[in-house]
């Protein structure tokens, strides 16, 4: 279950430490966990990427005093939001800062030239407090994770403490959109749920729902919409932990999907090391497209275009990942790294929609294949 970060307390603690040091003319130093691949370990027991001992230190000196002053100023704005339960995007925070500075000439030295500068300060605060921007009530547009189910009930606690219950079977054709901050949600199954299927393509997820997948089977079906957002990652983790149902990921067979989408969903990322515990679902299995599916179902596949910058970069990254990424290096994930090796060796790729070619006149064919694969334990 995702844990809450007490930003208010962390802010007070940080400023207390700062003032205490200053009173003694001692140089304040703020340390944060280094979120990078070189400080990244895979713990097979927990199943996600965990941080090592490396820290990045920010010391208050004449060069960093501007950055620190801006951070304290931004924390005040954020605390004000948290107090009243207001939320903002990063761009809105940029304009709120501009407005504050406009009305208080003493703050003019803090003025931001563009949004990149204020975004950097929000990121810096997150680093120091080891939290996500959502903890600061600074939200990005909710993306991905549109969920369909006839059995799932969601109980939401609002910022003002009131509660709401959402029965997904009562939403008609509309999906449930999980928020970027899933800590306020509780789940319940009306009846036994067989599994949760996460489909890489939002469009394909919709097609499966429209053809009656969720009516025929007691499942949860959600669309990831590419690289999983915090919402998708936290939501999948919630489903896995609260409902204890098997989760399957259904996506393309290519290097990008394996490294950037599936690995992030299953074990988190190096950039979010400190929060992977809440934003990864280690039990998720890779249902396909598997390399053997190409032959078994006679799927149309393509050669990787090595002169295409994006595809050749993905291959290069895959080579690096096999050597350096602790997730792919761990023997627990041998099945996934074998797929990556196969991709590097054969330089072929196959899309999830290729299952629609198996029997083009049967719109239920992909559904049948998915059910068959799960039944036969044909996943990694």
């Amino acid at each position, binding site marked *: 279950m995702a844990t809450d970060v007490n930003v208010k307390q962390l802010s*007070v603690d940080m*400023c207390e430490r*700062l003032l205490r040091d200053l009173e003694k003319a001692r*140089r304040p130093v703020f340390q944060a966990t280094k979120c990078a691949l070189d400080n990244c370990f895979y713990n097979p027991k927990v199943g996600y990427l965990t941080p090592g001992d490396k820290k990045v230190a920010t010391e208050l000196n004449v060069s960093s005093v501007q950055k620190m002053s801006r951070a304290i*100023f931004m924390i005040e704005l954020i605390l004000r939001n948290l107090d009243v339960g207001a939320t903002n995007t990063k761009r809105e925070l940029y304009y709120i800062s501009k407005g504050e500075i406009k009305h208080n000439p003493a703050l003019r030295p803090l003025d931001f030239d563009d949004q990149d500068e204020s975004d950097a300060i929000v990121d810096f605060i997150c680093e120091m407090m080891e939290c996500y921007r959502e903890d600061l009530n600074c939200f990005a547009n909710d993306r991905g994770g549109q969920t369909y189910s006839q059995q799932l009930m969601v109980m939401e606690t609002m910022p003002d403490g009131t509660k709401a219950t959402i029965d997904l079977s009562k939403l008609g054709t509309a999906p449930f959109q999980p928020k970027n901050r899933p800590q306020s949600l509780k789940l319940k199954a009306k009846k036994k749920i067989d599994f949760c299927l996460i489909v890489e393509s939002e469009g394909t997820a919709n097609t499966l729902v429209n053809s009656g997948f969720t009516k025929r089977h007691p499942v949860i079906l959600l669309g990831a919409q590419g690289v999983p957002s915090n919402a998708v990652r936290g939501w999948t983790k919630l489903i896995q932990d609260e409902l204890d149902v098997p989760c399957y990921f259904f996506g393309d067979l290519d290097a990008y999907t394996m490294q950037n989408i599936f690995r992030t969903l299953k074990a988190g990322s190096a950039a979010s090391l400190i929060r992977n515990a809440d934003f990864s679902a280690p039990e998720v299995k890779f249902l396909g497209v598997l390399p053997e599916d190409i032959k078994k179902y006679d799927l149309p596949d393509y050669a990787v275009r090595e002169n295409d910058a994006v595809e050749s970069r993905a291959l290069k990254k895959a080579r690096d990942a096999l050597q350096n990424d602790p997730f792919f290096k761990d023997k627990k994930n041998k099945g996934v790294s074998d797929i990556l090796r196969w991709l590097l060796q054969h330089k072929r790729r196959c899309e999830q929609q290729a299952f629609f070619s198996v029997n083009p006149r049967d719109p239920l064919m992909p559904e049948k294949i998915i059910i068959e694969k799960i039944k036969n334990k044909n996943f990694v």
Partner: protein
Amino acid sequence: MAKTQSITSASSAEYFSKNLQQVGFSSYTKAALTTLKEAVDNSLDACEEAGLLPEISVTIEKIGEGTAKNSDSIKIRIEDNGPGLEVEDIVKVFGEYLASSKFGRGRCSRGQQGIGISAVTTWAQLTSARGASVITKTEKMRKACQCVVEVDIKHNKGVLKSKEVIDWDRDHGLTCEFIIDARIQLQGEGGLLAYLSGTTLVNPHLTLRYKILEQDWVEVARVTDTIPEIPEATDPHPHTMKLGEFIAHSHLFGRVTIGAWLKKGFSRISDGVLTDLKKAGLKQSLLDTSVDTITEENFKNVFSALQKVNLMAPSTKSVLSIGETAMAKSIQRIGQVDFFAVVSRKPTICDFKPVLVEVAIARLIDRDMPEDGAVTLLRFANRVPLQFDKSACAMTKAAESVNWRSYGLNQPKDSLPLGPYIVAVSVVSPFIKFKNASKETVDASDELVEEIRRTLIQAGQRLSKHIRRESKEADLEKKRQHIEMFAPILVDGACRITRSPKNRRERALEGLAKLLGRDAALAEKELKVAIEHAEEAVMKMEQMTGILPEPPVVEEKPKKKGKG
């Protein structure tokens, strides 16, 4: 059946008259520049050969419309105080291609092949139907000789016309005048002024007077009375020759043994080398054979054996240097500089040829150059400015390869650095590898580029002392401002968040002031060191050149004298 065509041979004059674009006459603007350049270079070479301090006067006037479309009729007149030419030499110099006193001698003169001024005469002849008008007087002549020289294109011979003896109020010298179709471009990298200022920069001993079009006379006085001594050519080095040259070289020595010829006719061949040759399989009997009797096959054997043995690199004695002192003085003639750095490397061997690279970098006080534009790169080969085809040149490639950022200059990736600086690079060698006959670009061989790069790095290091001082000053100023501006904002914000009382705010502000003050004190110390280094560099330069560049303006600080 097609009729068999007869094969005819053409004179070199015929070839060049049809291909004048290859020797600097590819456009009307380049025609004016090439004419000026060839005449001035010849005057400088002649003065140096005769041990005279050059005084050159240039007048360029527009006398009407040119005979060709979009061109003007331009009169270019160059007058020098050189030794003058004998009448029989005038026809050869101005009217005959490949007639040169310098061809293949292996000396660091500006002219090499004897093409340039004959091409100018041809251009004048083709565009205005009149060749070169020359006045000459040598020390031996009682009166001066005035004549017109034209090129007999069919036979590559000079033709003397309207020769007359006149009075001339000087002991010796030469004046040449050309009327040509051309267009005048004064400004820009390919402009006449860039050529003239570049020439004065690398010829500190030159006094130049010029009047171009309607502008007033300009006089640039010499800054040194030392005439550069052009070192004598050294004997050829076997590793720099080809087989044909090797055989031809033997014809100069008549009846001598191979062994004696090798020792006498080449540099870096000693008895030790002959022993090595024998060890490499060359028979003693062959070394004892006379050069005028051996077969081509045996020449080949000797040549191949020589290529295989290790020889000392060629001598660097034949290379001429402008020198750091002269360059430092000369760079002041471009304008008032606020700081500069000069580096003259020791002669070295690149691609088996002796080369000397010198660099001068300066920042002008009255600069009309943009702060964020690329530096002005001036290139010189054997003290002649190169003004075209910059990108392919060894000097440009070397300048682009240096990491100028470490010396405090801004630099986009793989490009020239930015800023209002003049970077002058001079390459001097008896054998400069030009990419074309009009000598616009020096071939970028790896060894030469590396040598130029090293010189630029040394100059960059010297320059960085001045730049570091400026950046430290700016850094200290920024730090002082930061303390004033941000300290109260930071402390007030932290106090509001923690709901701290007023007295805590005061204590924290005091502590912060101490902390940041320490940083500022450190910056002050660093600035002091940087000022010392920069002043030391200025003193050193002053000791060397007797010139003190305008010190940078430091606001609100009394000027310090001497060190510290």
